[in-house]
């Protein structure tokens, strides 16, 4: 019998959908800034595997000659990115939802299982929970990355007033590299995230908009028979047959 099972709270959904355009615009204005000194590449010696970014990329997205605008947008939107991220962290901390999100000692083993299953290498379906180990690691890492972007950003924005921070992050130039690398990290996160959301299907996607999933529930035992459950990712729930809450 199908039932409504609550999944994401309204606050989480707001944080998610506010962050999406804000981070996108931070990356976009960041590209305008980066264009003025586009020196990073993957490679060694005279061999370049990938230049950040090829001229065709800059041309196609008209990223050129917008340094001043890029800086002003970046230093305005940083507040939105910071405040939304801060509220998210405070919310998850005080609501107790961090229990679903923080990786635990089983997460890494589970993350490997999930990855092998998703790549079609393993047939063993991992335990279905609100967030599996791979998700816990990904969603926690991306928050740590956000903090990293704020700190490396501050280190290159005010390298004299926050000289201690700039030094701690390996100096002005290295902090720049970290700041850039984190941005590439968000783009990679985004690609995997989209692929996984498409895979997971409508029920899962709708939950990030409407907050709930429709689940098959056994009316006699009240057990969720199919689909992700709202069970916390506590150690006990990692057991193959999850105990009832």
């Amino acid at each position, binding site marked *: 019998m199908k039932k409504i099972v609550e999944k994401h709270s309204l606050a989480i959904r707001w944080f998610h959908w506010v962050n999406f355009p804000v981070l996108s615009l931070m990356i976009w204005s960041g590209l305008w*800034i980066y264009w003025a000194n586009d020196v990073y590449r993957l490679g060694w010696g005279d061999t370049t595997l990938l230049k950040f970014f090829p001229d065709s990329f800059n041309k196609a997205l008209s990223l050129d000659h917008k340094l001043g605008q890029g800086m002003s947008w970046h230093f305005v939107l940083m507040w939105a990115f910071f405040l939304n991220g801060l509220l998210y962290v405070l919310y998850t901390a005080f609501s107790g939802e961090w229990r679903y999100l923080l990786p635990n000692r089983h997460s890494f083993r589970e993350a490997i299982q999930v990855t092998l299953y998703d790549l079609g290498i393993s047939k063993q379906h991992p335990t279905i929970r609100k967030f599996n180990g791979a998700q816990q690691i990904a969603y926690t890492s991306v928050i740590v990355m956000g903090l990293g972007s704020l700190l490396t950003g501050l280190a290159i924005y*005010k390298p004299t007033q926050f000289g201690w921070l700039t030094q701690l992050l390996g100096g002005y130039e290295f902090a720049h590299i970290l700041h850039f690398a984190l941005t590439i990290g968000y783009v990679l996160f985004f690609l995997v995230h989209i692929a996984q959301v498409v895979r997971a299907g409508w029920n899962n996607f709708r939950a990030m908009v*409407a907050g709930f999933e429709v689940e098959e529930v056994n009316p006699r035992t009240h057990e969720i028979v199919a689909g992700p459950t709202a069970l916390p990712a506590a150690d006990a729930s990692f057991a193959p047959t999850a105990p009832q809450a």
Partner: protein
Amino acid sequence: MTDETQSAPEYTPTPAEAAEEAAALRTAAHRSRRSFIGLGLAGAAGVFGWGWLISRPQEQGIPRPLRQVLEFNDNLTSAYYRNTRLAPEFARSRARKIRTNGDVGLGGEFDPMAWRLRVQGFAPAGTAPRAQEFTFAQLRALPRTEMTTEFKCVEGWSTIVTWAGVRLSDFLAKYPLATRSGRAFDPNHPPADAAPFVSLTTPDQEYYVGLEIESALHPQTLLCYEMNGEPLSLEHGAPLRLVTPLKYGIKQIKRIGTIAFVEKRPADYWAARGYDWHAGH
């Protein structure tokens, strides 16, 4: 969906359960519709707000609300600013040749031998400013300060350079032109009658920058005449340029013609073109 879905109901629902399920699905459809419309409206509001924002009157090259946030950032930074915080200094051996970037104000005929630094003192309200001229030899006679700091261009690149010159604060200790009273003062505690701003312009007035007095008095702010152990070259701003690791390169004006101590925030070449006025570190 997962494999478990197919193997799902192992029971036959009672009519009451079937009705409950139908009600749940109706609620789901209703909530879902409402939420997606809500998200759509929020998105539309965002796009509308964006359109409004970029259509605001421009203030120095960017929409006014953006300029206001940049001013807020500057006020916050100024509140945190301390003259005792120094930019890191490096070993002289780490200094490198720096690229030449920017030649606004360096055009036309220029005779370094005939050059004089013109300094306009901070005048009491209603009186004409006292102007004084200095020869290169007079500046050389002041205490020489050398530092190896990282020069940071607003474009994103940076180079470690050894600079030498006279601290602006040492210049003012000898020639107290920054106060209305004409008295010298401790650079860490500018008195109430000190000028709040400094304006620097090239002799042809094509390039001009503004600094707040705190940055001008910082111990690493130099009127510089030497770069990497050599006299400053013309393309790097000979005979005298400003060097300060507190600001991006756009503020470190080459070929200074006039320094004026003023009441109002002075015009700034790049701030007028959409950049942050403080451009500070």
